């Protein structure tokens, strides 16, 4: 009597699971790393094609792709261990800004694609899940922009930050600038995330040492997009310097609200105009940005005298020719990660992950690229690059950058 239901059940269950197994197994790729002179060097990375990190992740990926294409056009990258050029293959998956999806995909790159080099996605959130996975698989993680301080520990040799110092170091110049220029009434608003809070902590500590107590000190959820009430609260404290630490998705509504409120502060600082100027200019307008301060990064900081890779002007020209768009900082960060990989391969004695790490330290402190000095701390954090303070000044219909303080 139960034959039919059982048959139906077993058909559904078995066929469903077989189909699913095939679907899941369909993820397999046929890349196996060989120990001697591989036909190609595989680089695995992730990018966020959609979601909250897409604006920043896609340019970083474009920069890396640009470097791969440049290398392959020249016949590949020179690998010292094999005394020859080997072509590059970039394997990239779209994590859609989801760190849980990213975790699966980092695993996929290591266990199935067996990539030779692993490059993490943009920022701390999408890099965080890669840190233990890379360490577990003894895989060196090339980290272009994941600046979370907790990633870099003495017992983890499998990570190297290629651009930007860890976020807690960022406000060093800013704090010095505020103190030196006798700003006594400082208002600070920051988002509740690792990146922004670590900067706020550093700034507050430095201000405290200079006996400056902020007249306004408040954190807001990272999802905040309406700042009008907050800005009026800040105005009520009559500050002469307003510092806002947020992501670009916070900086834009914050600057828009400041413009809309008619507020005027002697000094107004936000982070992302220094990295994504054209994007923020499109949303806020030149008038909304003119006179404000930021941390300038390449290409706003122009480094043409480099000892490795393209200088800033040459890069801008080549990048525009290749992608038909002007580069921003994250394009530079992606390209710079490629340059670090290139130099590592030129210096490594093999493709073993600790050999790669050892090679990184052979040129740490000596390589100067369009992104600045590449220098690693013993824990793999970036300490060569510094972030000065700059003011955005109206120039014709656009903006120009004037560095006002550099340590």
């Amino acid at each position, binding site marked *: 009597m139960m034959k039919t239901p059982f048959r139906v059940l077993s058909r559904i269950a078995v066929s469903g699971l077989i189909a699913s197994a095939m679907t899941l*197994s369909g993820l397999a790729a046929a890349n196996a790393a060989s120990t001697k002179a591989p036909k190609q060097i595989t680089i695995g990375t992730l990018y966020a*094609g959609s979601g909250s990190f897409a604006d920043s992740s896609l340019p970083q990926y474009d920069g890396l792709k640009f470097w791969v294409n440049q290398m392959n056009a020249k016949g590949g990258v020179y690998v010292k261990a094999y005394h020859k050029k080997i072509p590059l293959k970039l394997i990239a998956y779209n994590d859609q800004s989801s760190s849980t999806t990213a975790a699966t995909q980092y*695993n996929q790159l290591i266990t199935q694609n067996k990539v030779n080099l692993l490059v993490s996605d943009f920022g701390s959130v999408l890099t965080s899940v890669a840190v233990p996975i890379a360490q577990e698989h003894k895989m060196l993680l090339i980290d272009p922009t994941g600046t979370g301080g907790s990633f870099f520990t003495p017992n983890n040799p499998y990570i190297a930050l290629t651009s930007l110092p860890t976020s807690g170091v960022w406000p060093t110049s800013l704090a010095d600038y505020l103190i030196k220029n006798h700003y006594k009434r400082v208002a600070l608003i920051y988002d509740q995330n690792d990146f922004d809070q670590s900067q706020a902590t550093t700034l507050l500590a430095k201000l405290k040492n200079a006996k400056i107590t902020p007249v306004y000190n408040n954190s807001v959820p990272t999802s905040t997009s309406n700042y009008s009430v907050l800005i009026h609260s800040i105005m009520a404290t009559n500050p002469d310097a307003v510092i806002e630490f947020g992501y670009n998705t916070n900086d834009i509504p914050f600057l828009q609200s400041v413009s809309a409120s008619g507020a005027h502060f002697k000094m107004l600082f936000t982070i992302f105009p220094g990295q994504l100027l054209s994007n923020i200019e499109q949303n806020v307008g030149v008038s909304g940005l003119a006179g404000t301060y930021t941390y300038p990064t390449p290409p706003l900081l122009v480094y043409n005298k480099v000892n490795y890779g393209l200088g800033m002007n040459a890069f801008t020209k080549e990048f525009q020719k290749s992608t038909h768009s002007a580069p921003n900082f994250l394009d530079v960060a992606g390209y710079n990660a490629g340059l670090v990989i290139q130099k590592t391969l030129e210096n490594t004695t093999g493709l073993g992950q600790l050999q790669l790490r050892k090679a990184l330290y052979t040129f740490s402190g000596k390589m100067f690229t369009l992104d600045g000095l590449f220098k690693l701390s013993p824990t793999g954090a970036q300490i060569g690059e510094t972030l000065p303070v700059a003011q955005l000044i109206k120039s014709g219909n656009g903006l120009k950058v004037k560095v006002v303080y550099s340590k």
Partner: protein
Amino acid sequence: MRKPLISGGIVFLIVLLFFAIMPSVYSNEDLFFQAMVYLALAQGVNILYGFTGYLPFGYVGFFGTGAYAASLCITLLHFPPVLGIIAGGLASVVLSILLSPLLRLSGAYFAIGSLAASQMVYYIVSNPSLQNITNGPYGINLESVYQPHTSYVTMIVILALVMGVVIYIRNSRFGLSLQAIREDPVSAGMAGVHVVRQRAIAWFLSALIAGLVGGAFAWHISVFYPTTVFDLNISIFAIVFTLFGGVTTVLGPVLGMFVLYGFYNLIGISEPQYFQLIYGILILLLVLFLPSGIVSIVKRRGHYVP
């Protein structure tokens, strides 16, 4: 009674064997771990929505609470990870007790209420003022106890428990009473069903499952931020997988997870540019032609689905 139990048992065994064997066939263990997480969460949603009719959009609140409670027990109280996971489950049950007044709401009001509650927990956990306890926005780092294989096995055990509970509910008087309440609470009450108690048990069970799964997830992923474990997409995935397969059954969430999560990974990885389009069309077709899920094809023909 025995035969439905046997058919449920077959599904149970096939699913667990699949997850036990697949990492040795295909070494991306994390893929299967995440699949188990979503399957267990889908079964938790199944208990609450399928059997009682409460759609918990804020289900991720219990998941995140479990993840954080387990992590804090491990880091601050030096619990062994497994004990931490159990504490995570219990913390979610405590939260569900605190939030039990939400059960006075129904339909969209309950869905919105649970969503707001999950956001409330998220903002408390990530608040910088609680940095000494939760580490605020800096997230959690469990690298010192990171053991992906052991946490994988633990997740299989949790999944087994969850599947066992759902099979029990599917075939018990308790499950029938829940379904009676879902259809008409007044009639069910008049027929002798203790409406408030039965609903509350389903609510606590569902929270316990999410808490245990959250704890195991925290251990497995080991470095995460509050946004990772309170991500609303986790709720959405669990709900969609359940609805796609078909609620009030053991098999429905299993099919929903395997088909949709399989597609999610396959299309999302190989053809990301078409991912959202294909995924959207798939869900649209389901809503239009199979609103009761895939299992309704079999049910319509009068067959029993475990």
